[in-house]
């Protein structure tokens, strides 16, 4: 008994260390979304309003992308007490990521009744490259692992004591505000959860669980309400029903068919929007179960601090996952394994509905920790099988060898994360803004105005974040920014020429800037090639990022 607690605390400590140590520098860079989330937390902490002046909002307008608010709210204490910094913004994510390891243990033990499975599940999540990667940044996607596992655990406990059911409602309710895919997935999860435990519901359910139902009802209502205040906007904008190429692929194929003499009816039948959407969904959905995503290539893009070219699980886990599926097919799984399998199957649906190349580990974060529990079960199952066939000694050797290889894989991953990933990821992770802002800070007194190009993507947020502009100033200024909406522009940074104090943001129009006492920051290619910059910046792979130019010299 005692041994389990020692092991659990060891796992927990390991999880904490690999999630918290060095978060201000790794993942390298700091993305606009992290800065946006952080600044809204700052704004809420100091004024009770977001940067647009909205009091205690249910969605954050942010850059016009309408972010889910939960992360910003969770970051209020750390930002308030530790000050606005990369560390204080990333800390809540890292801590909740660590707690998720513990709640995974609780959930797994409640579901399966097996301590060894629960411990291994916690261990597999603790060392998961996918989960470590998402925990170390201020990434909303990561919250869901904690809230769902807590919710499931409290739900099962709540079957006995209705008071804990309130915690479950609260947890699932909050998850509705964690991330788009978390919001979409939560109701699906609740349905399969209730279905899996339907035998435990007897008597007057409504009466027994009236408070939990009420609590969740309030959250559900708030979600529904917030859908009409903009949250649905980004949701719709990034779905596959709204392709980036504006259906050009479909019409090109159809045109090709017609050119070859296909009758119009058949050309329409063989190339149409419905078929296209279906194909996209299918492709995206199964990309999350692809061997390449899980074990060998991982994510398509590095913008969430994950490493492309490395599976979201360890290569060794191929064996465990396959064993796990075999055990389920042969009805040798653990109790409620069906629930975990259904969870894993349903989880990528929201991710599959969004466009992009697929393989987006952040959107599919709802698959965690189901996939780790399955992987851990594979190890337990194989151990049992080997024990039955070759004896306990052999099985123990196998178990220890597996654990040692996994720890070795963790070490390799951490080395990769620390040394190889930064140069590759620095561009996607928008590395360098801190340096640029501190350089501006040191010389801005000499200039009448500082103009930041829109290529700094949402340039205002870097000023707000790194110069710690008082929220009240931003709220005053952002009143005027709202005109982007009236102009029919989707995102704030597509607006040309908005300003904050002496900072202006937008295109770099050389003719208008020439000879002014301005400091201009943008990509090298935005300036004439003969310009002499005051300062140049580059990414960690050595490629140039931005330059700073005195407009007098243009």
């Amino acid at each position, binding site marked *: 008994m005692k041994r389990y607690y020692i092991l659990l605390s060891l796992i927990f400590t390991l999880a904490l260390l690999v999630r918290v140590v060095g978060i201000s520098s790794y993942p390298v860079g700091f993305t606009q979304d992290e800065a946006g989330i952080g600044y809204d937390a700052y704004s809420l902490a100091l004024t009770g309003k977001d940067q647009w002046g909205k009091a205690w909002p249910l969605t954050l307008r942010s850059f016009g992308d309408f972010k889910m608010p939960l992360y910003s709210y969770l970051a209020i204490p750390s930002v308030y007490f530790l000050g606005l910094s990369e560390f204080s913004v990333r800390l809540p994510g890292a801590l909740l990521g660590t707690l998720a390891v513990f709640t995974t243990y609780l959930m797994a033990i409640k579901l399966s009744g097996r301590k060894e499975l629960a411990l291994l599940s916690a261990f597999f999540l603790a060392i998961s490259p996918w989960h470590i990667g998402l925990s170390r940044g201020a990434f909303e996607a990561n919250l869901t692992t904690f809230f769902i596992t807590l919710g499931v655990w409290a739900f099962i406990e709540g079957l006995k004591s209705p008071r804990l059911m309130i915690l479950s409602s609260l947890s699932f309710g909050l998850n509705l505000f964690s991330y788009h895919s978390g919001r979409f997935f939560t109701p699906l999860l609740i349905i399969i959860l209730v279905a899996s435990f339907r035998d435990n519901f007897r008597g007057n359910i409504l009466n027994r669980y009236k408070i939990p139902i009420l609590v969740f009802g309030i959250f559900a209502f708030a979600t529904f309400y917030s859908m009409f205040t903009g949250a649905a906007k980004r949701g719709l904008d990034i779905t596959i029903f709204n392709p980036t190429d504006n259906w050009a692929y479909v019409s090109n194929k159809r045109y*090709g068919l017609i050119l070859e003499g296909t009758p119009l009816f058949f050309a329409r039948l063989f190339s149409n929007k419905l078929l296209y959407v279906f194909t996209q969904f299918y*492709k995206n959905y*199964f990309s999350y179960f*692809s*061997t*390449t995503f899980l074990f060998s290539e991982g994510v398509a893009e590095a913008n969430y601090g994950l490493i492309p070219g490395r599976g979201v699980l360890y290569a060794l886990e*191929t064996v465990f996952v396959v064993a796990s*599926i075999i055990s389920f*097919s*042969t009805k040798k799984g653990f109790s409620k394994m069906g629930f975990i399998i259904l969870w894993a199957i349903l989880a990528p649906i929201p991710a599959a509905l969004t466009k992009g190349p697929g393989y987006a580990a952040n959107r599919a974060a709802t698959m965690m920790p189901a996939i780790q529990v399955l992987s851990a079960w594979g190890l337990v199952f194989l151990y049992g099988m080997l024990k039955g066939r070759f004896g306990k000694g052999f099985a123990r050797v196998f178990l220890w060898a597996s654990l040692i290889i996994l720890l070795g894989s963790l070490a390799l991953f951490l080395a990769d994360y620390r040394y190889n990933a930064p140069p590759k990821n620095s561009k996607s992770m928008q590395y360098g803004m801190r340096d640029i802002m501190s350089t501006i800070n040191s010389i801005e007194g000499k200039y009448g105005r500082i103009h930041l190009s829109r290529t700094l993507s949402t340039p205002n947020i870097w000023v707000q974040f790194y110069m710690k502009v008082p929220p009240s100033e931003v709220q005053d200024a952002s009143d005027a920014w709202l005109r982007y909406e009236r102009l029919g522009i989707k995102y704030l940074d597509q607006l040309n020429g908005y300003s904050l104090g002496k900072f202006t943001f937008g295109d770099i129009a050389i003719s208008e800037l020439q000879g002014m006492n301005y400091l201009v920051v943008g990509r090298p290619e935005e300036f004439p090639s003969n310009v002499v910059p005051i300062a140049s910046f580059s990414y960690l792979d050595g490629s140039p990022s931005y330059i700073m130019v005195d407009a007098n010299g243009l």
Partner: protein
Amino acid sequence: MTVLALLLFLPIAFLRLWRLDKVPIALFGDEIDVGLQAYSISETGRDYFGNRLPVLFHSFAEYRLPMQLYLDAPFIKILGLTELGVRAPSVVMGLISIIAIFFLVRKIFDEKVAVVSAIFLSLSPWHFIYSRQANDAGILLPFILLGTLFFVKGMESYKFLFLSSLFFCLGIYTYYPASAFVPLFIILLVLVYRKKILGYGAQKIGFLFLATLIILSPYLTQFISGRATERFSYISVAPENKSNERGIAERVFKNYSKSFSFSFLFSEGDPNPRQSVDGWGLLYRFDLIFILFGLFNLIRSFAELSEERKKLVSVLGLWLLVAPLPSSLTEGGGTHASRLILMLAPLTVLSALGFMLILNGAKNFKSKLIVGVLLLFMAFEVVRFFQSYFTLWPKESWRLWQSGFKEAISFVKANEGGYQKVILNNTYEPMLPRFLFWYGYDMALFQKTFDDDKHIQNIYPSLNGFKLGDKFYFGELVKPIENLAKEDNLVVASAEKDVTNPTIFEDSELKLLNVIYSPEKTPIFYIYTQKK
């Protein structure tokens, strides 16, 4: 049954023969080479470098395994130097693999699954693509299917093992990945059936071993001399590509993982447009559902199968696991549809099995209705694939098939009479093999007169290249290409490499005789001379 089989077989064969000269749009380099070697061997008994009845054919680019080239010789003899003549062996072997899979699956499961497997194989994009182009991959598949079939039959009756050995060995003579796959697969087969095989006794096993050795001896002598491994090591993981710092094991694992990936099999296919149709994986999307279902059920019911059936199913499973290994050892082998062709057979069988399970599971009206809708959807997808294959794909992939040579050289052949020299561009794509093929050059003469295709500076004024006889010059046209135009010269220039400014044909001394266009109406070749 025979009537049904024939009824099924006719459209399957028809689909493989229909417009075979037009789709794929042109004979590309490797296909030309097949035809040319077959032509050379059928005319002179030698490969085009003059080696008599070679085990490995000496081609311009490499040493080639002989199977397809010998198979093609009679077809070239009968059908001439045409697309049909070159691609006919692939069609025939494709049809044989459909028959072979029927008999193999009948052995493993039952007749129904066997019929469905044969139909699924015949309609599968992967199989269809390789049934209609001269590629060693499509030729290999039936040999391995037959080798496996006769191995399994050999567990009942010893004599079949000789046939098994023969077919596996012929596979090794067909395509390089087989030389890794066959030994591995046979070791596993022997392990599965170890009791049975040991029961045959040392003498019988010895005979079999000897027979195999004899069939393989020509190959082995070449192998020992190092020729056979040339191409394989060229593409193996170890050398080259220093930019990829990861270890060999990791790269092999990555390749292996890719070959089982969803995107390779079901959505994107091979990145090479010659080996995949845009918008299609190598299998149908519905195959995924069936394969998963089939696999799930096989695993679930495995323990309840008879000992005999267990072994047969293991053979299928081991085949699937081993099939991607040879390709994994090569650069880019994770998504290489040709080198991975052997995956197709077990995947097709699993898909057929899953389909039959679903079909049989539909007992009541509601589930039958669902199956009906499913069938309709499948038919739609199949029709849609063939539509893409025959109408869109030729146009989309013309560049990789290198179309235009046939038209250009046919024009040269028809008009060369009035000229003393014909000068052909050799920098766009290697021109010589295509010229020999479409011109129908006398191969005995070629073997006698040809020495080297290395470019020599100024072999002719304004041309760096080589010549064939006294008339035909191949090489890099030195700019300005107007200099080559003489009254007695016929020049074939590449639009991409030579004619960067087509307006030169408007007002100069040049006489433009013909322009060869791509299906997208972009020019490929300009054929010109000087105005009289």
